[in-house]
């Protein structure tokens, strides 16, 4: 090779460059799609979850709320748990008979396993008898949460 850039070398470089750019585009598109999907899944409440009746004593709480309970699961290393804790507390404070329980599962993998918790925060909405009505993985949308509580307390949705 006398020349520093042969024609073959240039062609190979162009193919490599194009391949790398396509690789980057796929990576970016895939990441954005994953982010949009995860965010959509987190905001969405899930109903009809086959869970048993939650006994407050097992979780170290004395009782459940009169009409509904917001059962939050947190860990030590959870950046969004404190914010969700504040939101749920203020929602519970604004309603009679609604109680907010925040369970730290950092040292309780048994509870995390029992409730199939794969991410924190996870929030369960329990009715007056402790039956799991709705499940939120991640940060629940406050308006959706209020609607869920309206459904449980039998109010019309004009809050």
């Amino acid at each position, binding site marked *: 090779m006398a020349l520093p850039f042969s024609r073959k070398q240039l062609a190979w470089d162009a193919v490599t460059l194009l391949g790398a750019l396509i690789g980057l585009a796929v990576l970016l598109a895939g990441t954005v799609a994953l*982010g949009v999907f995860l965010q959509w899944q987190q905001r969405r409440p899930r109903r009809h979850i086959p869970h048993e009746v939650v006994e407050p004593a097992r979780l170290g709480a004395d009782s459940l709320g009169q009409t509904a309970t917001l059962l939050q699961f947190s860990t030590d290393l959870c950046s969004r748990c404190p914010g969700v804790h504040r939101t749920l507390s203020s929602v519970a404070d604004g309603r009679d008979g609604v109680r907010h329980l925040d369970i730290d599962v950092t040292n309780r993998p048994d509870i995390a396993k029992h409730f199939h918790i794969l991410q*924190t925060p996870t929030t369960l909405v329990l009715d007056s008898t402790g039956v799991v009505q709705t499940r939120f993985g991640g940060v629940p949308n406050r308006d959706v949460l209020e609607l869920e509580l309206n459904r449980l307390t039998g109010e019309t949705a004009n809050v």
Partner: protein
Amino acid sequence: MSDRAAASERRSGIDPRGPRFAAGITALLLLVDVFLGLTTPLGATVAERALEPAFLLLVAIAVLFLWSVVSPRTAPWGAVYRFLVQPRLKPPADLEDPRPPRFAQGVGLFVVAIGLVLHLAGVPWALPIAAAAAFVAAFLNAVFGLCLGCQLYLLLQRAGILGRERPAAA
């Protein structure tokens, strides 16, 4: 920052936008590194592979991860955020526990270190794949505020690798 500010940070947490700003810069660096890794052919010898730009940049990123794990308060992007960006923004609505972002930096360091070692050992694609994996996590954190590290922490803890197990039937 003054001692008083440091004390208040310990008490109430950090501005959550700081780690996200840092994650944005990290994501950009990792994307450049993926590009370099995809365009540079794998060197024949260990010395050649160690001098490739993609390897050197990923070493620099790994050092930054390590810095954020060892001393999050002095890490460069956090400092840039506090001195240049934060004064121009409104005060944060919520403060955040500084431990989760620190744990996530450790996860990033782990992933990137695997890529570096495998690359030195001559495994093709190891470096761009590791950089791409770290990029996904950093990008999701910066743009969507999703913390993959937190979820990983919970999975490790459920598997009994982290945290102490205390059975419920006590």
